[in-house]
Every structure is written in structure tokens, then in C-alpha cells.
């Protein structure tokens, strides 16, 4: 099959010539100018083609094609990751403490200071290593892709990418990626062109033509390449994608090379069977890799705030250490010196030298810093890391986010940002490949003033569906609200809803073909069978268009579709239906559609297009040839495309398709008959988010054509900057007096579930910005089809006016923009009390100016206040810039999502970068923090996992702070009872185990498994997500509250123990307590308190939580038993502590009970009051879920849901709500008028 198809393509055309303008364009002189640099520094690269072995040794040794994205290697891992670890202040502090533990300053044993540090650092480093290992595996995967490379004797064999080296001749097949930067030698096309998709590099979806040198284009067979020997001299590796300077010495001649001959790594070969190329840049030298920047390590907002909390704790620590030091000094000077039992005079104990109390005080200060170090949660970082890794695992495993089509699931590539997912406020999204599939479907058309393919708006459908479900509720609510009119109203409303439904569903302007309604409606939203064609209308299908009244216009309409394009047919295997390939998928959709309407475009030669048409008069299929006279290509400024063809009869036609406004401007007087109807249809289509094109034609007299042809040819051959202008002018001359035929609507197919997802995200209060490289119209269409734009939305279009643009004076442009922005802002201020939202559309050029210093703030102010912002025609760099500015200006968490390499900048710049891993290309994914196979999973990722993780991590940090304060402060209080001498109340081992075993697991279970509400409820009430952006769970109020809670709890624990155990005997046998007993009992209270505290924090108990919480408490007793059973040389004061002394004393247990209860009471009271009187959203949802057991009250549930939706301005449901509102008002008015007519009728009177 490839063999045969190749032959046909070759024989058929050199269809690159179709690109009339480009072909005749004189080669740019720029590259020649640069050639003189060759050999100079920066341009010194020498590639010996087909002799890769010469590049394995010096002096032309270049790196292999292995590309690595790992952070570390075996050697650098230890120093680098250690350095990373000790960038955290807390870790540095603990390192210092560990070092000091080897001096006499330390209050604890060495092991108790060193062991936790090693443990903590070890775990973090392990995590780093595992993450890097995954990166390595991914690299391995990329590097072991295979490509055909020449191995000699004219044979090509598979080689992995990493084995390629500079100079290799390789063969790349259709739809394969280029493994490195190649010099393009030849392709399967005879004229030596190939099509390249560079989406991964710059995000542009249209195919680009690359052209090889004339000298090499003949070598397009495997054998011929073995003889090929050439030398390339070119620039050194650089990241510039659009320039290339070099020359090829081949057969004693030197040819200049330009970017058209260079195929870049990570772009993809399209529409071309194969190409041959020589590797000129490999691996790290390639432009794609040179362009990739190492992803910056991102830290979540919570973690940054956590640092502040840690600093706060540090200052607290500093303060109490200072208090300790000063007190020691005073005690030493005035009191201790008299305590003869200390015998301070006998030796100079550095800590207790009454002669120099200041020195001793200072020593005590350093010592206290370590002693109270338990205030600083050493294990917080490591616990957070562990928790995040586990959270990541759960995110990755979520089956709801598994895409069956691509067999991929969500991957969290870094675990640092899980909780950041719960705080996102602005989403910056790419369009193509992210929201849309880059597939077009022919959906509707309007021919000769009649719309086909159904004219029901999708919104109406959704509205009627929703009204249907809430008809009951609606009726009830009317019943309740105004009982006086209830009778009439309810009757009317029920009946009228039926009427409206009918009106919506069945209302056709035509009134004919009632029978087609139901199948038509049922097909809405279904996948079409034919790719690119999702159209059903019995009036046109199955050749019934023949019976339409204005047959000529219909035929012409189909001819425009079939002829006005740049596509080529590709033979499909079995059927007589052809497949098409074209520059844009839109054209493919038209070709497919015209084929369905029996206007099959089936052959193209350089100058002729052949259609198989159905002749309505005879009913037979006839072949008709059209000679192509000219092709006036599409450009973003022209916004139209025309072909001039001559048919067999010698008639010359101009077929034109283009943007409606452009076409409407160029209509002849007699060509406007359908304009009004078409315009109406177009606006309907546009509201549904379809991309529309108007079709028109014109019959040209031969004489006029000849005249014009001479003008045009002259323009074409002009060399110089005015050429484009001349060409434009020439085409204006012929593209006039058009006759409008109609319009077609193609749907830029959205990815599955995108509108619903966006709807949920909008309900969750997220703002969405669309940043796309595509043109404005497309972007706006997508805005509509995602329901981000609505008809009643006020749109601000910010773009540079023509004059300002041509003058290209920065100042003028700035003023122009400022004026626009201020105008818009005024409008916004005036209308801000109304609830109609605003949208802003800004294009790349305007953006360039808008993001400069003078205008930036005004622009952002306006943009931030808009519900939806579209930036079109933006470059990758601008995307990144916008992201950064939005992030900086608003200070809100931004999330960037994209799929191509052009989104990399933005993905890296945003607080969270998400790459779509669905289709192809790894750049975005490699740069991202999370990769999703589909956009729609963003909903679950944010609303469920983000929300959960945010709460988990914030609760966890707060609890951590709390528990360490509880422990740390008791140490301090005890100091007050020991004349601040630095004695420790607890055994070293208690302290070591406290963070490692006794309290670590429950908090990890909190961090991993806590759920305020289940995932279903999260998704049903997206507005619950708003808690995250508002940061109510990690607000300073809460942090301080928890710190106070810790202080109070520690006070209660310590004082209660002191008073209960002071002086009198604590056992029946009359024994009094010593320091070991006090320590043991106090510590028991702490363990109980902190573990019960977490039980109060957790609202979701699985057996794991139970096991961990109660297990932790139990493990304390087990530890006491085991420790007490060790010989006293090891257990010291803990020897037989539990068995002999405290365990058998009733006081011990009673103290534990009361102290635990009392120290938890403040928090308990707080949550009780909050829940009963000031509940938060999640509390109410929990209650609703809880009480649902007793009464399934769907109505209440639904009311809450709609309430939660109320504040949403954008998204599908907002649109549907608006529609329902509108319909209801309509109904009401009708009811009134009916009522009035009834009451005023004589019969009634």
C-alpha cells in the first residue's frame, strides 16, 4: 500500500505550486548576508554528511542524541540534593543543633538530635531520588524511540534515537517525529517538499511547508543516498527557532541553507510519506532542547505561608530562649550562688559560673535554642513530603481520571503542588489540543437563505431539559410564593411549559418535514459516523437537494465547497469515499461534506481540479474538470480565499469563501438577496460556537479576467517590500461584486466534556483566560462553544487601530490602547451593578503594547474584572508574560494548561502548570507539574483533589504546629520550676519518638485520607471549592488560633500535672513523685491530648485513621513497658516506670482523663459553636449528607445546588439559567396577556 500510494502521489502533482505566492517569492537575501559569518565564532559547526563515524572523535565530536531532563546523576545526587535540603531554614537549624550536640551545649543526647535529622533528610532525599528516577525512565522512553537510519550498502535499519549521531542520514516516515534537527534532503514528493506540524514547538496548528535544496531533491531512494557526501557549515547550537544560517557543500558546489531546509526535533512529518535528512544537531544541541528551560521548582502558597509560620515559631523560640538566658543569669547571680548543694565555687562549670553570669547566660541561650527546638516541627517537612507523595499516588490512581482512549491517567509530576490545586483562581488555557481536538465537523449550513442541519440552539435544548426537570419545583414554588394567584398561575405554568417545550423543540420556521424532527434532535450531541461530518437534514441528504427550489444556488454552494480550498484527496482503501488532507482541518470538513452531497473532489493536478458531480437533470454522476486559473490564498488580514476557475464551457468563475463581514462588504447589488437570512443564521451559528464561513461566487467575463490577469501577474513578479500590498490590491480588484450563496458552520470539535468541565470550574468561581495563537474569530467561536461567552455579554475588543499599527509608533499605540481601555473601564464601572458579565478580547499585537509599562496596570485592572478574557494571536513568549503579569498583579494562584511546546513558557510561569498528555508531544508534559490526558479531568483534579489536598495540607500543618507547641512549651514551663537551669523534664527517648512514632502516623493519615465531603458532593457543589482561593483554612486567624490552642493546651497539661502531683504522695503506698514520674505522666497527657485532638480534626474515619490514632496512643504504653523492661543502664529513669510506679496508681489514669478532656475543651467549644451557629459550607453539606438518612429531600438538595450556582456568571449552566429566566419571563407575560384577554372578553363578563 505505501508503495502504490507513493507512486500515485508522485505521478500526480507537484502541488506545492498551488501556493502561488510563496513559490514565486524571491529567495530572501538575508541568509546570504549571514553566510559571511560562517567559520567565525558562533558559526563554526561543521557536519560531514553521511559520515557519522567522523563525529565520534575530535575535532568534530558532538554530543550524542541522548536527551536528559533529570535533575541529578549518580555523582551529583548527594551534594546537590543535600544542598536543596539545607536551603530550608528549619533543616539548617536542625543541622546546627545536630552539630552542637557534639559539644557540651546540647541538652539532649546526640542520637536524639541526629537521628531525626537523618531520618527527615533521608526521606526527602529518597523522594527526590524517586522523582528523578521517574524522569529518567521517561527520558529513556523518548530516547529509545526508533528511526530508520542508513547503515550502509543502501540499507536503512532501525536505530534508537539516542544512537543517532551527527552526520547520520535518516529516513522519517509519515506522522513520525524528527529525532533531532535535520537537514532536509529529499522527500517522497518529487519536488522535494514536505509538510511539518510544529505544534510542539510553537503551537501553530497549520502545517508548514519545508523545501529541500534543488541539488538534493533527486535523492529520494534508499540506494541513492549511499553515494551522498556533503559538508554542512552552519551556526552553533542556539535556541532560535526561526533562523538558520549555513551552507551545504555538495559536489563541489556551495548552496546556502535557510530555515526551510531544516527540520526541527519534536516537530512531526505530515502528509508526506517519508523524507530523508541528515542529522546536523543532535540531543542537547537541538533547537527544541535548547529552547526548553529547566522547570523552575515551584512551591505552593501554603508552603510559603508555612515558612512564615515557621519563622514565627523561630522568633517565639528565640524569645523564650532569651527569657531563659536572662533568667538563668539572674538566678545565677543572686540565688544559685548560695545554693551550697550545687557547690558552684568548686569548679568553674561553664554553664553555671556565678562570677560571669553573662557568659553562662549566653551559653544557656544557645542551649535553650536547642532545648526548645521541639517548637519547630522538624518532622513537618518530611511528613508533608510523605503525605504529598501519597496524595500524588492517589491522584494518579484515580480511576475517574483515567482516559480509556489513550490509556493514560493523570500524572502528578511533582508532588509539591497538590494543595495549590485547591487554591486556583485563574485558569489560563491554551485552545488547540487543550479545549479543542483540532478536528472540524461540518455541522450546519445556510444555503440560499434556508438553514439546514437544524436551527435549535443547544442552549435552548439544555434549558428545556432543565425546565422539564424543574417544572414540578417551579410549580410548587409558585404555589408557595403567591397563593392568591396560585391557581391560575400553576395551571398556566404547567401547560405553558409544555407549550414552550414544543415551541423550542418543534419550532421550525419552515414548518415542513415534521417527520425529520425527532431523528434530528436525537443526533444532536452524538458522534458522527463520518469523520468531519455531523450533519443530518433530510432536505439535503441522500441527494434530495435536487428537489430544492433554488437549485442553481445550491449547486454553486457545493461547488464553492468542493473547489475553493488547498486540499488534496487521499485514496481510502475500500470505499469510493475519499479522504482529504489540507492545510487546515476546516477545509477537510468542507471537502468531506461536499463529497457527502455528491460533489466529490477526486483529483487535482497542477492546474486542474476534477469533481464528480451529480447532475440533477440527468441524475447521473458526471466528471467535470475545472482549470485553476488562480488561487488567492487565505491570510489573516484578507480573511478570505478565492479560486478562479474555468469550466469546460469556458465560463470563468470566482469562488470565494471568507469571513461574513468581508464577504458581505463585497457583494454585488444583485447578490444580496439572501444576506439578511444568512446573517441571522450566522449569528445563531456563532452563538453556538460554530466557526462560520460565508460562501459567494462570481462569474467573470473573459475580457475582464484577461485585464485583471495582467495586473495580477505584474504584481506577482514585483520584487520588493511593496509586493504584498500590490498583490492585495490586485486581488481586491477581482474579489468584488460577489453573489452570496450562503454560509456553512463547522464545529471546532471540543474535547470530550469540555463545556461541562468549564461550567463546573466557573461555578467553582474560577476565572478562565483563553490564550491562543489562533485568530480572533476562532478564539471567539470557542468562547461561545464553551459557553464562556454569551450573547448578552458585554465584550470589549482591545486591538490596535489600523493607523496606529501602520505608524508603529509605540507612543501612539500606547495612547490608542489606553483610550480604549479607559473607555471600556468606564462602561464597566457604569454597568457594574447589573449582573451581566464582561468579556475581553485582545489580540497579540495589542497585547504587546498593553503589557508594556505605561499601560500594563490599566490593562490588567480591566482584564481582571472581566469574567472571561481571550488573548488571541499570542506568541509563546507572550503567553508566559501574561501569565507572569497576571500572577504578579493579582497575587492570585494561576493555573496554566496547555498541550504544546508553545505553552511551555506559560506552564512554567504559572503557579501550577498542567500539560495535556492525550495526543502527542511531550514538551508541555515535561514542563508541567501535572499532566492530564484530557482537559475535562481538570474538573476533578481541582474540585475534588485540589480541594481535598488543600484542606488536608492546611489542617495538617496547623495540627503539626499545634502538637509541637504543646510539647515544646511544656519544656519551657518546666524550666520555670528549675531555676532555668536547662534540665529536661522528659527522657530523651520520649522526645525522639514523639515526632517519629507517637504522633506521626495519625497526622499522615489526616493528610492522605481526610475528606470533608465525598468526591460526589464536591462535584455537585463546585462552589465549595471557593474555600480554597479564599484560603479560609490557612488564614492567619486560624494559624494564630491553633497556636493559641497549643499554648493553652500545654499550659493546662503542665499546670494540672504540677498541681496534682506536687508534694503529696500519689500512690496509696505513700510514695511521692519524682522527676521521672512527672515526666512520664505529663508526657502521657500530651500523647493523649495531641492524638485526641487529631481525632477532633478528622471528619472522615476509615479504619486506617482509627488504627493510627488509637494505635499511636497504645504504642506509647507499649514503649513505656518495653523501655521500662530494659536494664537500668539503658532505660535510666524510665526503668520500671510504668509497671512499678505510675501504671498502678489510679491518680495517673485520672489525671490522664481530666487533663486530656480539659485541654481539648477550648477547641471543642470552638468547633461546637462554629458548627451550631456559624457553619461553613462544608459543615452544612456534611449535615445535609448526614440527615439525608432520615429524609431524602431532593428538593432541598437541589435548591442548595442552584443557590451555589447563583453567583456564577459564565459557563453552560449560567447560560442555561439565563435562558430559563428569559423563558419564564416570557411565559409570565403570556400568561398575563391570556389572563387579561380572558377576563376582558365579553364571555367572561
Amino acid at each position: 500500500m505505501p508503495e502504490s500510494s507513493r507512486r500515485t502521489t508522485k505521478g500526480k502533482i507537484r502541488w506545492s505550486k498551488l501556493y502561488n505566492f510563496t513559490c514565486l517569492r524571491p529567495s530572501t537575501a538575508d541568509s546570504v548576508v549571514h553566510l559571511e559569518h560562517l567559520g567565525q565564532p558562533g558559526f563554526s559547526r561543521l557536519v560531514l554528511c553521511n559520515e557519522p563515524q567522523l563525529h565520534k572523535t575530535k575535532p568534530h565530536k558532538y554530543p550524542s542524541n541522548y536527551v536528559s531532563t533529570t535533575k541529578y546523576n549518580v555523582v551529583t545526587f548527594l551534594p546537590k540534593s543535600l544542598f536543596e535540603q539545607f536551603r530550608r531554614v528549619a533543616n539548617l537549624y536542625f543541622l546546627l543543633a545536630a552539630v552542637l550536640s557534639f559539644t557540651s551545649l546540647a541538652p539532649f543526647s546526640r542520637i536524639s538530635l541526629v537521628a531525626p535529622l537523618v531520618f527527615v533528610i533521608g526521606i526527602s532525599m529518597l523522594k527526590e531520588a524517586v522523582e528523578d528516577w521517574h524522569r529518567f525512565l521517561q527520558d529513556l522512553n523518548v530516547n529509545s524511540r526508533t528511526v530508520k537510519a542508513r547503515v550502509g550498502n543502501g540499507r536503512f535499519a532501525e536505530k534508537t534515537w539516542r544512537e543517532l549521531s551527527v552526520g547520520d542520514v535518516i529516513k522519517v516516515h509519515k506522522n513520525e517525529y524528527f529525532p533531532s534537527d535535520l537537514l532536509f534532503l529529499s522527500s517522497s514528493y518529487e519536488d522535494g517538499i514536505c509538510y511539518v506540524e510544529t505544534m510542539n514547538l510553537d503551537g501553530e496548528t497549520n502545517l508548514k511547508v519545508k523545501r529541500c535544496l534543488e541539488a538534493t531533491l533527486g535523492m529520494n531512494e534508499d540506494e541513492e543516498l549511499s553515494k551522498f557526501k556533503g559538508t554542512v557549515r552552519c551556526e552553533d547550537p542556539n535556541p532560535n527557532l526561526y533562523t538558520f544560517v549555513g551552507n551545504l557543500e555538495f559536489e563541489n558546489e556551495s548552496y546556502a541553507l535557510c530555515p526551510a531546509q531544516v527540520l526541527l526535533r519534536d516537530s512531526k512529518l505530515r502528509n508526506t510519506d517519508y523524507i530523508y535528512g541528515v542529522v546536523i544537531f543532535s540531543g542537547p544541541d537541538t533547537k527544541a532542547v535548547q529552547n526548553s528551560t529547566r522547570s523552575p521548582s515551584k512551591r505552593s502558597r501554603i508552603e510559603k505561608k508555612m515558612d512564615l509560620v515557621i519563622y514565627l515559631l523561630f522568633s517565639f523560640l528565640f524569645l523564650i530562649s532569651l527569657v531563659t538566658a536572662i533568667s538563668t543569669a539572674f538566678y545565677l547571680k543572686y540565688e544559685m550562688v548560695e545554693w551550697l548543694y550545687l557547690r558552684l565555687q568548686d569548679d568553674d562549670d561553664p554553664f553555671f559560673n556565678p562570677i560571669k553570669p553573662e557568659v553562662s547566660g549566653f551559653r544557656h541561650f544557645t542551649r535553650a535554642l536547642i532545648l526548645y527546638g521541639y517548637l519547630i516541627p522538624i518532622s513537618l517537612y518530611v511528613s508533608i513530603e510523605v503525605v504529598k507523595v501519597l496524595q500524588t499516588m492517589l491522584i494518579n490512581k484515580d480511576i475517574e481520571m483515567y482516559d480509556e482512549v489513550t490509556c493514560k491517567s493523570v500524572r502528578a509530576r511533582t508532588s509539591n503542588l497538590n494543595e495549590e490545586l485547591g487554591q486556583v483562581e485563574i485558569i489560563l488555557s491554551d485552545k488547540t489540543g487543550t479545549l479543542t481536538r483540532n478536528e472540524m465537523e461540518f455541522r450546519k449550513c445556510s444555503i440560499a437563505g434556508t438553514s439546514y442541519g437544524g436551527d435549535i440552539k443547544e442552549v435552548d435544548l439544555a434549558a428545556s431539559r432543565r425546565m422539564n426537570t424543574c417544572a414540578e419545583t417551579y410549580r410548587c414554588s409558585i404555589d408557595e410564593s403567591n397563593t392568591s394567584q396560585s391557581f391560575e398561575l400553576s395551571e398556566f405554568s404547567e401547560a405553558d411549559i409544555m407549550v414552550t417545550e414544543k415551541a423550542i423543540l418543534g419550532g421550525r420556521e419552515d414548518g415542513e418535514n415534521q417527520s425529520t424532527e425527532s431523528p434530528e434532535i436525537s443526533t444532536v450531541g452524538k458522534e458522527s459516523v463520518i469523520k468531519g461530518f455531523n450533519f443530518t437534514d433530510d432536505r439535503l441528504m441522500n441527494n434530495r437537494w435536487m428537489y430544492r427550489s433554488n437549485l442553481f444556488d445550491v449547486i454553486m454552494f457545493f461547488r464553492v465547497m468542493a473547489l475553493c480550498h488547498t486540499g488534496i484527496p487521499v485514496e481510502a482503501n475500500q470505499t469510493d469515499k475519499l479522504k482529504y488532507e489540507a492545510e487546515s482541518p476546516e477545509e477537510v470538513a468542507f471537502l468531506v461534506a461536499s463529497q457527502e452531497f455528491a460533489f466529490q473532489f477526486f483529483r487535482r493536478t497542477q492546474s486542474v481540479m476534477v469533481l464528480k458531480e451529480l447532475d440533477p437533470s440527468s441524475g447521473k454522476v458526471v466528471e467535470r474538470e475545472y482549470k485553476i486559473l488562480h488561487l488567492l490564498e487565505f491570510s489573516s488580514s484578507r480573511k478570505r480565499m478565492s479560486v478562479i476557475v474555468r469550466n469546460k464551457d469556458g465560463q470563468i468563475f470566482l469562488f470565494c469563501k471568507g469571513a461574513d463581514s468581508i464577504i458581505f462588504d463585497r457583494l454585488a447589488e444583485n447578490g444580496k438577496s439572501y444576506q439578511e437570512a444568512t446573517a441571522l443564521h450566522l449569528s445563531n451559528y456563532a452563538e453556538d460556537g460554530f466557526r462560520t464561513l460565508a460562501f459567494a461566487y462570481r462569474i467573470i467575463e473573459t475580457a475582464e479576467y484577461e485585464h485583471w490577469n495582467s495586473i495580477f501577474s505584474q504584481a506577482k513578479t514585483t520584487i520588493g517590500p511593496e509586493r504584498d500590498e500590490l498583490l492585495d490590491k490586485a486581488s481586491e480588484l477581482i474579489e468584488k461584486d460577489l453573489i452570496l450563496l450562503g454560509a456553512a458552520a463547522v464545529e471546532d470539535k471540543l474535547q470530550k466534556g469540555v463545556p461541562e468541565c468549564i461550567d463546573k470550574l466557573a461555578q467553582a468561581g474560577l476565572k478562565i483566560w483563553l490564550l491562543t495563537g489562533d485568530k480572533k474569530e476562532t478564539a471567539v467561536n470557542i468562547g461561545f462553544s464553551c459557553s464562556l461567552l454569551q450573547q448578552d455579554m458585554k465584550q470589549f475588543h482591545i486591538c490596535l487601530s489600523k493607523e496606529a499599527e501602520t505608524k508603529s509608533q509605540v507612543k501612539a499605540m500606547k495612547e490608542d490602547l489606553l483610550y480604549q481601555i479607559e473607555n471600556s473601564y468606564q462602561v464597566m464601572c457604569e454597568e457594574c451593578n447589573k449582573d451581566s458579565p464582561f468579556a475581553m478580547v485582545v489580540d497579540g499585537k495589542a497585547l504587546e503594547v498593553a503589557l508594556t509599562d505605561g499601560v500594563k496596570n490599566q490593562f490588567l485592572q480591566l482584564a481582571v474584572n472581566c469574567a472571561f478574557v481571550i488573548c488571541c494571536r499570542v506568541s509563546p513568549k507572550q503567553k508566559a508574560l501574561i501569565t507572569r503579569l497576571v500572577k504578579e498583579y493579582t497575587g492570585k494562584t494561576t493555573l496554566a494548561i496547555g498541550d504544546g511546546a508553545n505553552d511551555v513558557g506559560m506552564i512554567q510561569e504559572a503557579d501550577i502548570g498542567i500539560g495535556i498528555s492525550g495526543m502527542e508531544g511531550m514538551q508541555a508534559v515535561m514542563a508541567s507539574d501535572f499532566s492530564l490526558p484530557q482537559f475535562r479531568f481538570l474538573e476533578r483534579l481541582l474540585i475534588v483533589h485540589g480541594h481535598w489536598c488543600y484542606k488536608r495540607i492546611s489542617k495538617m500543618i496547623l495540627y503539626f504546629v499545634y502538637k509541637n507547641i504543646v510539647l515544646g512549651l511544656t519544656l519551657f514551663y518546666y524550666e520555670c520550676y528549675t531555676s532555668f537551669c536547662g534540665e529536661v523534664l522528659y527522657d530523651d527517648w520520649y522526645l525522639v519518638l514523639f515526632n517519629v512514632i507517637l504522633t506521626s502516623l495519625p497526622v499522615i493519615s489526616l493528610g492522605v485520607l481526610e475528606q470533608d465531603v465525598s468526591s460526589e458532593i464536591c462535584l455537585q457543589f463546585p462552589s465549595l471549592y471557593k474555600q480554597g482561593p479564599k484560603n479560609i483554612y490557612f488564614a492567619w486567624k486560624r494559624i494564630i488560633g491553633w497556636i493559641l490552642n497549643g499554648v493553652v493546651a500545654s499550659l493546662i497539661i503542665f499546670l494540672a500535672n504540677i498541681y496534682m502531683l506536687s508534694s503529696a504522695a500519689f500512690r496509696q503506698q505513700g510514695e511521692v513523685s519524682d522527676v521521672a514520674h512527672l515526666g512520664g505522666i505529663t508526657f502521657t497527657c500530651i500523647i493523649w491530648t495531641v492524638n485526641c485532638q487529631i481525632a477532633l480534626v478528622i471528619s472522615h474515619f476509615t479504619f486506617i485513621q482509627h488504627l493510627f490514632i488509637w494505635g499511636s496512643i497504645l504504642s506509647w504504653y507499649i514503649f513505656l513497658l518495653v523501655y521500662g523492661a530494659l536494664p537500668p543502664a539503658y532505660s535510666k529513669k524510665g526503668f520500671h516506670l510504668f509497671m512499678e510506679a505510675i501504671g498502678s496508681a489510679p491518680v495517673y489514669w485520672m489525671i490522664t482523663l481530666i487533663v486530656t478532656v480539659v485541654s481539648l475543651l477550648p477547641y471543642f467549644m470552638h468547633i461546637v459553636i462554629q458548627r451550631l451557629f456559624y457553619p461553613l459550607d462544608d459543615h452544612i453539606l456534611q449535615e445535609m449528607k448526614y440527615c439525608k438518612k432520615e429524609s431524602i429531600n431532593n428538593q432541598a438538595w437541589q435548591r442548595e445546588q442552584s443557590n451555589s450556582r447563583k453567583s456564577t456568571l459564565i459557563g453552560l449552566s449560567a447560560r442555561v439559567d439565563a435562558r430559563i429566566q428569559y423563558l419564564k419571563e416570557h411565559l409570565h407575560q403570556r400568561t398575563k396577556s391570556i389572563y387579561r384577554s380572558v377576563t376582558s372578553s365579553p364571555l367572561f363578563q
Partner: protein
Amino acid sequence: MDVDGGGVSAVATGDRTIPIHSGRHEAFYQFTQQKLPACKPVLTPSWVISIFLLMGTIFIPIGLVTLHASQSVVEVVDRYDIECIPEAFKSNKLGYIKDSSIPKNCSRFLKVYKRMKAPIYIYYQLDNYYQNHRRYVKSRNDQQLLHGLKYNDTSSCKPEQTNNGLPIVPCGLIAWSLFNDTYKFIRGASELKVNRKNIAWKSDRDHKFGKHVYPFNFQNGTLIGGGKLDPRIHLSDQEDLIVWMRTAALPSFRKLYGRIEEDLNADDVIVVNLMNNYNTYSFGGKKKLVLSTSSWLGGKNDFLGVAYISVGSSCIFVCFVFILLHMKYPRPYGGHNLFVLEQERHL
């Protein structure tokens, strides 16, 4: 678009069935999907009220019992450090205590105000005595106490490690400062028998103080801190020392001196003949003699009982407050329309 909402559909989508083979698989699946069966307690008013009520009803009886136990303990405390100084030395306490030629004996009269049942524990109480001082606490050597002279690294005992170049057993400041006041109790004409055995923790006697370790070179220096030890008695029998060596946690502490194993009747007057040897005068420490019975809770300490009663009664109080509040401002269960208010509150 989930328009029909409601819990029913949620449940339906929640139980997405996946072929599950064994229980363990299922549990793992549930874990990874975060759908493990869980109890989700919700604090409803009834829960809150019953929790407080329950706490109240449990704590108050416990408190009463505890308080009763504590009240049943009879405790007689007598501070004697000042009274036991002869009038002549009132202004020069230090001179008195340091002069070994002055007899230190002193008599105190204790009146038993309530019948005391045997065993009656005798404590000495020291106030403002920082036995928990770091320098002091560290100055001992557990190995030496257990193994005696065989263990000769006594660096931890500074500054009381050697004397005249010979090691001290037991070394260190704690042992050196051994409390050495002694008491004799006389009721009427007969002396009350004081049992001074078994006053230390058994684990100390058995495992921490060696049976073959005898005091050596103890209190032979120029500076004498406190009591002397009979070098013929091995350490594990020197219970005074063992009790003393258990350093107290707080600067005011009691230590067991012995037991009187006879009942004392109310209004008995007990004459205590004591030797006021121990120097607390130089740092303003107080010395007290305490006679106390014990209950199942130990000594006299009302704090625990009072705490239980007050917590219990405040729980009951809070419970009633909540009942009233709930009746006055009833919040509909499951929060009607509060969702919206909530949104606005946080805007």
C-alpha cells in the same frame, strides 16, 4: 451537567463497579479510589448536648469520690526550721547550723486533729530546694551505685568525685547532700515505732543500688554536705540514700522518711524529737515535717477532685446553655439557604 442532583444519583455514580476478585483487592481499590468505608461523625446539636451531658454525669461523681478520698486523708504539717533554732542564734542561723559543737536537737509538739489510721507516713518536706537543678541532677553515677568501685570513671560526679585522691562511693552532689535530719516520735510516754524499711522503690533497691557496694571515702572531705552513711551497710539497704537519690521534680518536695504503723487518735499530742542537722538556712530553704495517712489516691490533694467537679459541672452548664440557645435560635438541620449566606459572608 448533573441536573437531577440529589443523593440518589451520587450514590449511583459512586458505586462504579469494577470487577473485583478478592476482598483484599477490593480494599486496595477502595483505598486508591478514596472510597474506603468510613464513619463521618457530624456534630449535631443532639450530639453536642449529649456529649456535654455525658461528661458532666461522669465527671461529677468521679470528682466527688476523689474529693472524698482526698478529704479522708489526715495530714499534719509542721515547719520546724525556724522554731528549732535557739533564741540566741535567731539572727545567726548559719553560724548555728555550721557549728558542729552546738547540739542540734529540738522538740516539736504535733497535735493530731483527727484520727489517723496506720500506716501513717512520715515525710520531710523541703521548699526552695532545687533538687532538679541540672548540675545537681547530673552529678551522680548510676554505674558506680550498682557496681561500686569496679566502676571507676566518675567524671560525671563532678565536683564530688574524689577525695584525697581516692574515689568516693557514692559519688556526686546528690549523695553528698544527703538529708540528715532525724526524727523520733513519742506519744505519751512511749516512743512510736518508726518503720524505715521499704520506703524506697523496689526497683531502685533491686536494680540500681548494688548489694555489694559499700560506702567508701564518703563525706571525708573538708566540706560536708549532709548525712553520713554507715560504710558497713551496702547501698541497696541504705534506703534514706535511695529515697534521696530519686531527685524531685519540683523545688518544693516531700520525701518519705518512714512509717508509723500504729493508729493515732484525735487529739493525741506527739512529741517529735528531731535533730536539726541539715543546712537549708544558707539559701532560705524551708523544712517541714509531715505526717500523713493515705487513701487509694495517695496523699491529700484536693485539686484533682475539685478539677473533676468543676469540669463536670461546667459541662452540665454548657449543656444547658446549648439547649437554651438551640431552642431560641434553632438552625434548621442541613441548613436551609445558609449556603448562600455563607457564600456572601466570605466574599
